[in-house]
């Protein structure tokens, strides 16, 4: 216990850690945890957003659906994914894959590392608000377990729309908040340079969020990507086992209560 307190980080350090360029990419993470990943594209409505990667994979000999936000690796990819900020078509793709998982009884795993839903002209035109709203509405009654892991930034409604299932975990260096600390400081104090101060009052660190029961737990992180993948895998396998033992009805009641308490 003393050990943990000794290396306690400030909120600003956690934010910096969450945004670290060394974080794993979506593909590295998926392939590090799951086997036989088969990617599926498109939202069947308007397009295919590179900022959301999804498909079918295997975990502990079970067929599962995997979805992850993707920041991209090269400069070109990062432009294409808007640095990991999904478009409405990305959220619609995610929902399509979740509905598909439900039809075939597959649990869903979602990995979140996004500053938020993409704010832009095209996103507004194709209904960013509607896309997020629909995810929240539909996911509240999907009859298979949905487990989310925030492994970097968890920004606002864009993160919530991918973390509104049965269980949400965060890795040690990650954040989850109503808005970026910069935006928060700009709105409240009209000074985005006070972001560090904002990070502190926002209580966006995994520790604070766990205490408030916003999340289920924290996964330890280290520099070795392999070790992080192993830690995540262990946690989500255990979660899957527990959630799969519930009947669909029990699952949905539990999911309702999870948010009803706030």
């Amino acid at each position, binding site marked *: 216990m003393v050990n943990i307190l000794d290396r306690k980080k400030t909120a600003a350090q956690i934010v910096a850690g969450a945004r670290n360029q060394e974080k794993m990419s979506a593909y590295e993470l998926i392939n590090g945890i799951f086997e036989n990943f088969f990617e599926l594209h498109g939202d069947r409505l308007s397009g295919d957003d590179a900022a959301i990667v999804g498909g079918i994979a295997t975990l502990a000999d079970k067929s599962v659906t995997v979805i992850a936000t993707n920041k991209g690796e090269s400069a070109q990819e990062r432009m294409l994914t808007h640095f990991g900020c999904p478009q409405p078509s990305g959220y619609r793709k995610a929902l399509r894959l979740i509905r598909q998982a439900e039809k075939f009884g597959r649990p869903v795993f979602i990995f979140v590392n996004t500053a938020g839903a993409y*704010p832009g*002209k095209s996103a507004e035109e194709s209904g960013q*608000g509607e896309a997020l*709203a629909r995810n*929240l509405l539909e996911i509240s009654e999907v009859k298979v377990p949905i487990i989310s892991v925030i492994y970097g930034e968890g920004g606002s*409604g864009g993160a*919530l729309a991918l973390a509104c299932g049965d269980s949400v975990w965060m890795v040690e260096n990650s954040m989850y908040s*109503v808005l970026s600390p910069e935006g928060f400081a700009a709105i409240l104090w009209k000074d985005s340079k006070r972001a560090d101060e904002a990070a502190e009052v926002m209580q966006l660190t995994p520790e604070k969020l766990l205490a408030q029961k916003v999340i289920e737990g924290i996964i330890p992180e280290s520099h070795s990507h392999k070790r992080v993948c192993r830690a995540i895998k262990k946690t989500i396998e255990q979660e899957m086992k527990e959630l799969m033992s519930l009947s669909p009805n029990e699952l949905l009641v539990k999911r309702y209560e999870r948010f*009803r308490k*706030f």
Partner: protein
Amino acid sequence: MQLFNELKTLGQQHIKADKKAGERVPSGLWIACPKCHQSLYHKDLGTYQVCPNCEYGFRITARERLAWLVDDFKELDADMKTTDPLNFPDYNKKLEKSRRNTGLNDSILTGIAKIQTEEFALGIMDPNFIMGSMGTVTGEKITHLFEDALKKRLPVILFTASGGARMQEGIFSLMQMAKISAAVRRHSNEGLLYITVLTDPTTGGVTASFAMQGDIILAEPRVLIGFAGKRVIEQTIHQKVPNNLQDAETVLERGFIDAIVQRRDLKQKLEWLLESHSKGGLVNG
């Protein structure tokens, strides 16, 4: 100047500025419409507070709207107050000011209402309460309204007006979006009707949750509807966005709302919609 000096009646002493004149002129008589920029005499806005030039509905308090909207109303959860979960500096001061201005304890008024004989659960957000932002109390009152409506098998009508999530309540504000959505879904699963009326402005977390989940989504003319604010978009992607990008009319064209209804027609249109969805859809039945 010679002439002025000679004719005493027009002398400079007679046309000196009356320094106190400004104080005697009441302020607020003339209002500029924020949409069409026309100067309007305040009485021309009328009961409904609508610009006679462009039909834009001015931002009014929830209680002002209630006065002309319903024939009967029983308020719910009137005393519910926020616990200030983040202990946020100066938040209480801000709350007190908003409470004085709106006569509400938080940004929404909820209750069971009637238009003629049609009974329904009603929520009206107040843009004058910290910009109608959605805090824990807002979320709790809306969720409770849906749960109550489900128990009583009543339709729900919500008037949205919000700058988005309440920053001072941080992550707890965000959680309200998922909480309300799940309650909307339960209500909807029972085949009950949910109508949203988007008023100025409907943005952020409110757009991204219950505002866009109505079976029927109406909007007042020219109101702002969007997810990310214009300034946020411009400062993030460094591109100018067109002025009308988030006007109700544009959003209608893009396929996200069902109809734009003028304020003075709202009561009658809502009554008709309620009637056409009650009694198994048999109008006059």
